[in-house]
């Protein structure tokens, strides 16, 4: 993109904004808004990519780059910045609504513009990178809908705001060069090739007024700002300044919202624009196609309950025809995900998908046997064709085998290894490569079991397969950590799913009587799969290594670490069955 402005737009208060454009003027118009302490050049790589089939417009926000700067701090209030964006949009595309892409402080001011009823009709879509609406963030910080822990995590990452708001200190840091060094170090977070930023001292100094004029006021007295403009928030996995939830929380305020992650740091769009360009291109094409926007059917309670951590995502779940898999499908659908429900029982998978589609439109069912590697590969390419690369793959299909190991038949043993272990292996091999290749940000969730660390004479073969899944998940997590795909192992414990009724039982006398007693035990424990699914979905948001679900799963895990001897003793206990 040229370094000379192609035109100047005069703002409502007389400031002159430098506007640059590139690409095909007949294509859809994108307006890109940069953050602090950047100028329009932060977009060079992304604009070059998108210019192939779009009319790409960037501008220097007031005070930055080649735009003029107001004398007074009040010239940087959010309302004025939103008016600037509107002036640029009216100038470059007077007849058609434009698509917005914004980063960091650019995203903050663009959020303010799309939630402003007077401006919203000028915008066809908004892609937000690493920047929340300040009022939304204010509510999020005060009410902690995603938990106090996340608020504290965000507070740590926002600590620089205090520094930037202190009079004189940040100016001294920038002018002495110390601030620049610190920032350069932070730009390494998230990895990737380093592309030096082209900034001037003016960009560093003028932009401080953004923080000083707006932050305190918005955080202490947040108002409720909604928007009907379709919004997608893209969050880098290694953002030094932002936790996922403060961005995905916007799902509470935007009627048409989606949230995706990609592998990278706060400024990785400078060096690796591909994952962002891919999402922007798909989103713009979807809106431009004029297809009816999906309408979700939520009760008043559901609409209030969730942010947007899974909104607009695609989740593939195996074993989704019943039990935890089915309930997890419902839970994620309620949180806005489209579900590909996979099960060896076709009608059960279809029922799951049908119910999911009634909550969030766009789910599908596939009848696939997870033990069949070729069929899983086929499933993966089908999903890629129909939905694109999934955001989440849950390798959940599993069967139970109980009874003394020595009395189990070869057939039973082969079956349990095939489904429980090979099913996970096939799922990982089918989906992980495309999740890595597409730029990361995805999640793989494997269902292991509390039996993987609690040995028992009751379920030797079962616990062996689940321990293998747990070990595989740990190692895979290490392998994929540097490529932006997270791996989580779920260890449920006793969940009343009916797994007992379909389990193979060997050498325990009369089978139905044993099963009756086991079923009664599970029923008395009373931990429903719905509750387990809620717990899993909550936990997976923050990509933990392991999710023990029930209290016995937690206690067992602690015990297996504190006192392995006690766990070995438990393995010898004959259950009263």
């Amino acid at each position, binding site marked *: 993109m040229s370094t000379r402005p192609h035109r100047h737009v005069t703002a409502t208060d007389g400031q002159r904004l430098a506007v640059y454009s590139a690409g095909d003027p007949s294509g859809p118009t994108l307006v890109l808004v940069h953050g602090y302490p950047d100028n329009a050049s932060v977009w060079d790589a992304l604009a070059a990519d998108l210019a192939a089939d779009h009319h790409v417009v960037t501008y220097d926000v007031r005070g930055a780059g080649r735009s003029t700067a107001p004398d007074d701090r009040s010239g940087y209030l959010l309302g004025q910045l939103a008016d600037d964006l509107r002036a640029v949009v009216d100038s470059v595309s007077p007849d058609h609504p434009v698509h917005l892409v914004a980063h960091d402080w650019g995203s903050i001011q663009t959020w303010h513009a799309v939630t402003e009823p007077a401006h919203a009709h000028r915008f066809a879509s908004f892609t937000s990178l690493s920047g929340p609406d300040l009022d939304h963030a204010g509510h999020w910080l005060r009410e902690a809908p995603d938990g106090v822990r996340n608020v504290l995590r965000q507070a740590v990452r926002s600590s620089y705001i205090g520094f930037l708001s202190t009079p004189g200190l940040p100016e001294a840091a920038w002018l002495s060069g110390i601030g620049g060094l610190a920032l350069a170090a932070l730009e390494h977070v998230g990895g990737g090739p380093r592309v030096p930023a082209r900034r001037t001292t003016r960009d560093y100094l003028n932009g401080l007024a953004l923080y000083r004029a707006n932050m305190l006021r918005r955080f202490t007295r947040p108002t409720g700002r909604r928007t009907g403009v379709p919004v997608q928030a893209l969050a880098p996995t290694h953002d030094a300044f932002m936790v996922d939830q403060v961005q995905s929380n916007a799902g509470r305020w935007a009627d048409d919202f989606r949230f995706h992650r990609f592998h990278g740091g706060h400024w990785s769009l400078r060096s690796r624009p591909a994952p962002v360009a891919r999402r922007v291109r798909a989103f713009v094409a979807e809106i431009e196609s004029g297809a009816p926007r999906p309408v979700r*059917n*939520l*009760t*008043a*309670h*559901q*609409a209030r309950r969730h942010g947007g951590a899974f909104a607009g995502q695609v989740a593939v779940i195996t074993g989704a025809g*019943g039990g935890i898999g*089915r309930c997890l499908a*419902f839970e994620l659908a*309620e949180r806005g995900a489209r579900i590909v429900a996979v099960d060896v029982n076709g*009608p*059960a998978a*279809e*029922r*799951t998908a*049908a*119910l999911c589609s*009634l*909550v969030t439109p766009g789910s599908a069912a596939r009848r696939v046997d997870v033990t069949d590697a070729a069929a899983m590969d086929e499933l993966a390419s089908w999903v890629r064709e129909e939905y694109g690369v999934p955001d989440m793959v849950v390798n959940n299909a599993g069967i139970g085998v109980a009874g003394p190991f020595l009395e189990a038949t070869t057939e039973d043993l082969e079956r349990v290894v095939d489904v429980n272990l090979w099913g996970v292996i096939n799922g990982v091999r089918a989906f992980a490569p495309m999740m890595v290749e597409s730029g990361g940000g995805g999640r793989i969730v494997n269902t292991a079991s509390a039996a993987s660390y609690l040995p028992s004479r009751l379920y030797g073969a079962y616990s062996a397969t689940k321990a293998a899944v747990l070990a595989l998940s740990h190692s895979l997590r290490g392998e994929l950590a540097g490529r932006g795909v997270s791996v989580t192992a779920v260890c449920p414990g006793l969940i009343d799913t*009916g797994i007992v009724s379909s389990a193979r039982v060997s050498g325990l006398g009369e089978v139905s009587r044993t099963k009756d007693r086991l079923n009664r035990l599970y029923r008395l424990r009373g931990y*429903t799969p*719905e509750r387990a699914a809620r717990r899993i979905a909550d936990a997976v948001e923050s990509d933990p290594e392991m999710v023990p679900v029930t209290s016995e799963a937690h206690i067992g895990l602690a015990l297996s670490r504190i006192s392995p001897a006690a766990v070995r003793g438990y393995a010898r206990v004959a259950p009263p069955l």
Partner: protein
Amino acid sequence: MSHKNVTGDTASRSELDAFRELQQLAYQAASDVAATLEPGVTEREAARRIREHLEERGVQDWFHTPFAWFGDRTAFRNFHVPLQFFPTGRRLEEGMPFILDCAPVRDGYVADIGYSGYLGENPLHDLLMDDLRAHRDLIVDRVRAGDTLQDVYRAVDALIREQGYENRHRIYPGRVIAHQVGKVESRLPRAIVAGFGVRSLQTLFGDLLVERVHHRSPLWADGDVSAHPATPGMWAVEPHIGFRDMGVKFEEILVVTEDDAHWLDDDLPHVRRWARTSPAPTDTSEETATA
């Protein structure tokens, strides 16, 4: 005492007519009040409207006073103690399901009904209502076949699970899907204790004692005490299914005789609804929502 009723002869035709008439009246009250519900109404207010509506029409006593559940309370979310069943100050909003449940007594005859609705449009609520139909058919078929109540309960459970829903009647005290009702012939004063009429409670506890001697129960649940075929008499059956924040149910009287069983009345709002949406019984997995 009603245990004569429940252990032996089924009520005469005129008695059945009286039960049917009261059940009609109760359903009419629920649907009339449901039509008046608007955003902002509290559960207490809705319950009061049903009560007044029925008392104006000759109802003198209650098996239990009217209940109203709004929003996720229709699925009994976070219910831990029985007091939570009573109407609260929760206000109805657009996008909320609701259930009205009442059990009036008039001239000794009892009705116990449940009416489900939704303020606004949600195809999922329609689907849940449609899927209740399979349960109504299943229950009467299995009782007719002479299955034990425990087995019928488990069959309903299996169907709920297959449909992808949750069993919510297990939240009722005693996990009951149904309880026996009979004519109330008590000399006790008409008084309401904790939402239940003392005359009706006297009848119920009398039945509990008598049935206990026969190793049976007037309460129909999945425990071993329900491992017997349905006792002849009248059962108020209330399958209650839930999906996420939504619960739906119906409650009506099943008449059980020595060798047969039938629903007391087929001219009820939910039955008419099914006849309207799909005249023939359908397979649950193929049903589509009618918005």
